[in-house]
């Protein structure tokens, strides 16, 4: 994280001066743009027979520039100076350290103080972690979490394994909320016009104003809040509204559910949430729904788990089938058996045409190509054939028409009540947010707003530019901003109140299924933050009720020490769902409340399905093709990691490469290869995107599989604040229209002539092997790229192929596994435990949860943009995406890649100092304090999973980050190699427990961080010597194969080959899956 400050500054100038980095004597930033010659690529692909995979198009193109790019990357050149230390001053420093080098071993450790407690908490055992249940309140629904706490410092966030919704899985954003809390840039004080004030002085001013406004019923008092997720906050507001009937409460999030709610209102006459039961669905049709993409999609954890649950093929040959129609390449799209790219403007027409083909509603036909029509008919036929066992899922970014069509289709197919259920909305106060925001801005401009209280929102940054929120704000008497950072909004507000993180406060929230979770503080607020409950409570008659008491009152009633029988719940709106939700009724209420806090959620609060019927004729036909011409469609999407910008200052989220694009520390103008070619662009060209007269500039990036004629811009970057977020990428809100927040036609792209050096982290590892060893000999290609073409790194079959030939994963070139004895080296003995891992490629949805979990568990440092760009990202597990097939409509395969813990490990044999050695249980151990940094091991690793600390990446100085570290894992310094350890600290902890009890380790007792985080249980870890263990059984599964096992590394990590449930008829008609 240390380097990110300067990197941020560098990138800030990128638009004009992309080469500014060169001033530091660093020529690595000046990697030449890669030239695309599509014809060549196509020819190359056409020549490939059978299943051939590629990592990036540039590599296929075989351009000299690409060779140069790879050549300049890891690991051949480590001689350049990245840090501002000049060569001269470095030599000075080195001279001094050389002189000391001989004595380094003799230096004494500094004295270490011990600060014992004055009174120790009775339940604390220092050195043993404690676990507490809580929930991460996210706009799409709460994620119930289990927090690992070391001496009352939260050090890891994971899904709550006992909760019916997550069952232990999580996602990258939930994992990264940990770093969000320890973010050193968080605001630490209450500010009034930039000066520190005590909280009470705000409270005094606020309450004085409220007292004044009491007579007028709160006229001129406005609240602008992020989507309210807390039933308690909703209850507080609804009670406060009784005192101040004229006050207004507006919710706005830039990524909201307006499309869904607008459609629901139209179809059902009320706000309704849809719950999908994918465990019941054999055929899934996603209409731009990225339900496997992450917490951005409501119900992700459950949907991903249920989806993967029907693809495990354990003792059955039944599996589900996924169709995806989408304009933007998503993770879900690449998991689909059949995928169709359709521009956003035609999504509605496609949905209606599909509905019409299923006999509901009418579509104005025409305009569909043969390919599209065939696809549509094929999907319709499959849906009809599996009526009642299928589901149509509309995406949050698809227009309301798509949702209406989906409602109608699910109804017509008889899915409602089986695979689809309608329920109360998870959000207690659903609204059409953009409409509300527009009227708020109108009121602000009209001078009707005296006090604007902004709760956890950053409207100056996120409100579409055409509404010009900042100007409107200047016409407001007093603006109060409650937020975690002194952000764009805080800088122009009168009052800023530092917000407590969800790990520091009491609140509540509902998860997808409706179950209420209690948000509990895990740590005393680091900076004494406040929360929305305390502010809104001021409107009530008893303004000093704490957040805890407010939450308790919502679910327990008002009687503080609850009498038997309990008080009546304070049902307000749909906050508390009648007495069934009330913890307090009957029996020992206090005991049950404590149980709720222990469990983290209130039992039996899940929604019951609502009996609603979509109104007939709700799907009005739309013309199939809107005006096209040469105008581009600009589509807006939240960033996969930083979302709408709220996680932009979280280093992990910036650094973890986005799925599919592999973008890190950046956002780009993403378009298909054909569009790029048509516009005469090349990757890394700087382009100016214009929409409705507003302009931003970005780098052009080609994305396989995206709809032609569409440019995708991602929200959440281009922040003005933060040591991490500041200056990264462009701000897409500047061209976002409030009328069409997700896509609009009529955009244009202009090549500026400049170069925008996009940070993409693909192709890290040069293939240095000589031709006789299978390499190209000149070191111009990436290893994965070379190997993927013919080494069987990805193996998969269609269901029919699998049925006919279950051995498919072991037949063909480079797919044999040598016998154990075939080695020059003596075989190791594994007497007791032999750790192994199995990764199910059918279940992996590429969501990156494992990577984020690994960062948190193993104290992995953030390296910054420049270092990431030159391939020095430190992540111990990466997700390799292999593309297959044509450029315009490729398929993709995700493959999580960690250390394979080879039994014949090539790394161990080349280490000159014995820093990487074999354990009796088969781990390749990395002994950091022995490592001298020769990097021989990394060069000799066929999987390229070893990461080297080229510079001092670990942040030893920032106090808040020190609190976050996992105390069980060393923080690595400069010059040390590191890699996946199979979470050896967890293995050791369990071994000690088992040894104490004199028993063998139970299967499933050790869970690696990636395994724990995986929402689809794709990763299984255990003892392969125990033949009854889950992992041992998976190892004997016929589809299990080892990557590069033919070179006799005997990897302990193996993969279960994927099987695709292809619709044979459709595939034949479309010409897909032809071998």
């Amino acid at each position: 994280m240390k380097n990110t400050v300067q990197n941020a500054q560098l990138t800030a100038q990128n638009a004009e001066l992309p080469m500014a980095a060169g001033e530091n004597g660093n020529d690595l930033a000046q990697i030449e743009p890669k030239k695309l010659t599509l014809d060549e690529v196509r020819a190359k692909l056409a020549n490939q027979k059978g299943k051939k995979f590629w990592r990036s198009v540039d590599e296929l193109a075989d351009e000299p520039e690409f060779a140069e790019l790879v050549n300049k990357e890891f690991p051949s050149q480590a001689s350049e100076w990245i840090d501002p230390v000049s060569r001269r001053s470095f030599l000075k420093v080195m001279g001094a350290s050389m002189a000391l080098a001989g004595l380094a071993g003799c230096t004494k450790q500094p004295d270490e103080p011990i600060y014992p407690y004055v009174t120790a908490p009775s339940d604390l055992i220092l050195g043993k972690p404690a676990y507490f249940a809580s929930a991460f309140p996210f706009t799409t629904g709460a994620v119930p979490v289990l927090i690992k706490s070391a001496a009352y410092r939260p050090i890891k966030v994971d899904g709550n394994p006992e909760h019916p919704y997550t069952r232990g899985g999580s996602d990258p954003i939930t994992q990264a909320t940990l770093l969000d809390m320890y973010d050193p840039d968080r605001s630490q004080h209450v500010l009034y016009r930039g000066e520190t004030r005590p909280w009470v002085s705000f409270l005094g001013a606020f309450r004085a104003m409220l007292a004044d406004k009491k007579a007028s019923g709160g006229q001129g008092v406005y609240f602008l809040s992020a989507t309210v997720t807390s039933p308690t906050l909703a209850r507080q507001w609804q009670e406060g509204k009784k005192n101040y009937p004229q006050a207004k409460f507006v919710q706005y999030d830039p990524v909201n559910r307006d499309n869904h709610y607008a459609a629901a209102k139209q179809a059902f006459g009320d706000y309704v949430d849809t719950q999908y039961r994918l465990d019941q669905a054999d055929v899934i049709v996603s209409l731009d729904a990225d339900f496997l993409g992450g917490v951005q999609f409501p119900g992700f954890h459950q949907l991903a788990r249920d989806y993967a649950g029907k693809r495990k093929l354990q003792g059955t040959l039944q599996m589900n089938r996924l169709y995806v129609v989408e304009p933007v390449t998503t993770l879900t799209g690449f998991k689909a058996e059949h995928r169709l790219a359709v521009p956003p403007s035609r999504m509605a027409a496609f949905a209606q045409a599909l509905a019409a083909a299923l006999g509901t509603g009418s579509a104005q036909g025409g305009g569909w190509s043969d390919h599209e029509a065939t696809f549509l008919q094929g999907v319709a036929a499959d849906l009809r054939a599996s009526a009642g066992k299928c589901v149509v899922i509309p995406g949050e970014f698809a227009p309301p028409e798509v949702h209406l069509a989906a409602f109608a289709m699910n109804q017509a197919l008889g899915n409602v009540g089986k695979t689809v259920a309608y329920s109360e909305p998870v959000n207690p106060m659903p609204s059409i947010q953009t409409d509300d925001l527009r009227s708020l801005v109108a009121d602000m401009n009209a001078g009707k707003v005296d006090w604007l209280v902004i709760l956890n929102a950053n409207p100056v940054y996120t409100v579409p530019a055409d509404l010009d929120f900042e100007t409107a704000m200047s016409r407001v008497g007093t603006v109060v901003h409650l937020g975690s950072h002194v952000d764009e909004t805080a800088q122009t507000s009168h009052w800023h109140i530092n917000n407590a993180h969800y790990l520091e406060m009491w609140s509540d929230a509902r998860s997808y299924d409706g179950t209420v979770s209690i948000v509990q503080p895990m740590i005393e607020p680091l900076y004494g933050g406040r929360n929305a409950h305390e502010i809104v409570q001021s409107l009530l008659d008893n303004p000093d009720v704490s957040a805890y008491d407010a939450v308790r009152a919502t679910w327990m009633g008002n009687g503080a020490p609850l009498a038997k029988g309990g008080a009546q719940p304070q049902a307000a709106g749909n906050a508390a769902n009648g007495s069934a939700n009330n913890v307090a009724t009957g029996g020992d209420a206090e005991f049950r409340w404590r149980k709720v806090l222990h469990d983290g959620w209130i039992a039996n609060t899940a929604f019951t399905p609502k009996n609603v019927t979509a109104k007939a004729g709700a799907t009005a036909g739309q013309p199939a093709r809107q005006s096209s011409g040469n105008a581009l469609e600009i589509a807006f999407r939240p960033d996969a990691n930083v979302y709408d910008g709220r996680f932009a200052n979280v280093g992990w989220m910036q650094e973890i490469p986005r799925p599919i694009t592999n973008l890190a520390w950046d956002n780009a103008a993403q378009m298909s290869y054909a569009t790029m070619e048509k516009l005469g662009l090349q990757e890394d060209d700087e382009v100016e995107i214009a929409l409705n007269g507003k302009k931003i500039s970005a780098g052009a990036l080609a994305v396989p599989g995206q709809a032609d004629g569409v440019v995708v811009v991602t929200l959440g970057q281009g922040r003005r604040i933060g040591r991490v977020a500041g200056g990264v990428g462009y701000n897409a809100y500047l061209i976002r229209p409030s009328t069409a927040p997700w896509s609009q036609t009529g955009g244009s792209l202009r090549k500026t002539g400049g170069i925008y050096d996009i940070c993409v982290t693909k192709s890290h590892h040069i293939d240095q092997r000589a031709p006789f060893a299978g390499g190209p000999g000149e070191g111009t290609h990436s290893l994965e790229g070379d190997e993927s073409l013919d080494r069987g790194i990805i193996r998969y079959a269609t269901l029919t192929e699998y049925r006919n030939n279950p051995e498919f994963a072991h037949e063909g070139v480079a797919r044999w596994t040598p016998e154990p004895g075939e080695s020059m080296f003596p075989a190791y003995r594994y007497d007791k435990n032999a750790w192994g891992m199995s990764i199910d490629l059918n279940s992996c949805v590429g969501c990156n949860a494992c990577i984020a979990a690994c960062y948190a568990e193993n104290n992995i440092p953030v390296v910054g943009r420049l270092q990431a760009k030159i391939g020095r990202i430190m992540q111990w597990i990466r997700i390799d995406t292999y593309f297959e097939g044509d450029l315009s409509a490729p398929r993709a395969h995700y493959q999580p890649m960690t250390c394979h813990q080879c039994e014949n490990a090539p790394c161990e044999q080349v280490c000159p100092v014995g820093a990487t050695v074999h354990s009796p249980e088969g781990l390749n151990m990395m002994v950091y304090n022995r490592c001298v940094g020769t990097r021989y091991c990394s060069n000799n690793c066929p999987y390229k999973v070893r990461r080297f600390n080229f510079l001092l990446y670990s942040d030893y100085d920032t106090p808040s980050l020190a609190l976050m570290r996992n105390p069980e894992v060393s923080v690595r310094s400069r010059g040390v190699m590191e890699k996946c350890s199979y979470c050896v600290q967890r293995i050791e902890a369990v071994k000690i427990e088992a040894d104490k009890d004199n028993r063998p380790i139970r299967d499933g007792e050790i869970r690696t961080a990636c395994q724990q985080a995986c929402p689809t249980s794709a990763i299984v870890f255990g003892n392969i010597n125990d033949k009854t263990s889950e992992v041992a059984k998976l190892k004997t599964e016929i589809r299990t194969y080892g990557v590069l096992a033919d070179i006799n590394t005997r990897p302990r990590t193996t993969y279960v080959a994927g099987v695709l449930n292809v619709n044979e008829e459709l595939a034949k008609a479309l010409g897909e899956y032809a071998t």
Partner: protein
Amino acid sequence: MPQIFDRSSNALARMSLILTGLLIIALGLTLDELQRSPWVTRQGQRADQPVPFSHKHHVEGLGLQCQYCHTSVEESSYAGIPPTKTCMNCHAQIWTDAQLLEPVRHSWATGESITWTRVHDLPDYVFFNHEIHVNKGIGCSTCHGRVDEMPIMYMQNSLQMEWCLNCHRNPAKNLRPTSEIYNMAWKGASELNPVWCASADVKTGTPTAESVTCTEANPDLKGGVQMASLSQALPGLHPQTAGTLIGSENTGPVLLPAGLHYTKFTNQEALGNFLLQHYDIRNPRELTSCEVCHR
């Protein structure tokens, strides 16, 4: 031009070569010794502490049990440094005016920690775990020495890696019955002080310590024997008084279940090997694997 150096200077040159070699070797040896010297390891050094706390007085003199202060030694990697509250349990009533205890009273009054200096300080890349050692028959004094005889705390052993490996390569030489973990004066079995041990059926899932019972009194003699194992009513809190001599009067004898077959051990090696087997200690190959201590 005559030669500058006479032939005789060849001898000098040879000498200086040898001398240089010797010097380098000497330097190496010196550094090697320095590395192991108390100057680096701080072995035996008494750190400046805010309160000159005497383990000798509290353990030997007053008979405080180790776990009274180091509470988490059996259940956590960290043995625990007592909170000020523990001191005040007694010192709220005795020695309430003692000047030496002023930092304790100050801490109690202000809520600020007493700032001790760590005596047994391992490097940050070493992950030592107390609980497994204590539960598997390594006593406090094996590593920390005769704490009961230390007026001011110091480090008895170097705690360097070679010292750790000494035992990890051959744990038998230091194993003792878990009943004797907190016995500072434990010297191992010998002809003069034999130890009798018996093992019950080893059941998986029960702590090993519960299946082994040892005694220093001859169980064949009449009058019952003392029961000594972690399975007692107060697990972990064993009826032993630090500093008392082996074989001296302990807490009241507890009758052992009949039918146990006792083996008499008269040397540490035999006892160690017996315990090694019954405590289910990992073998040296596993114990010396890097990941045991480094992660």
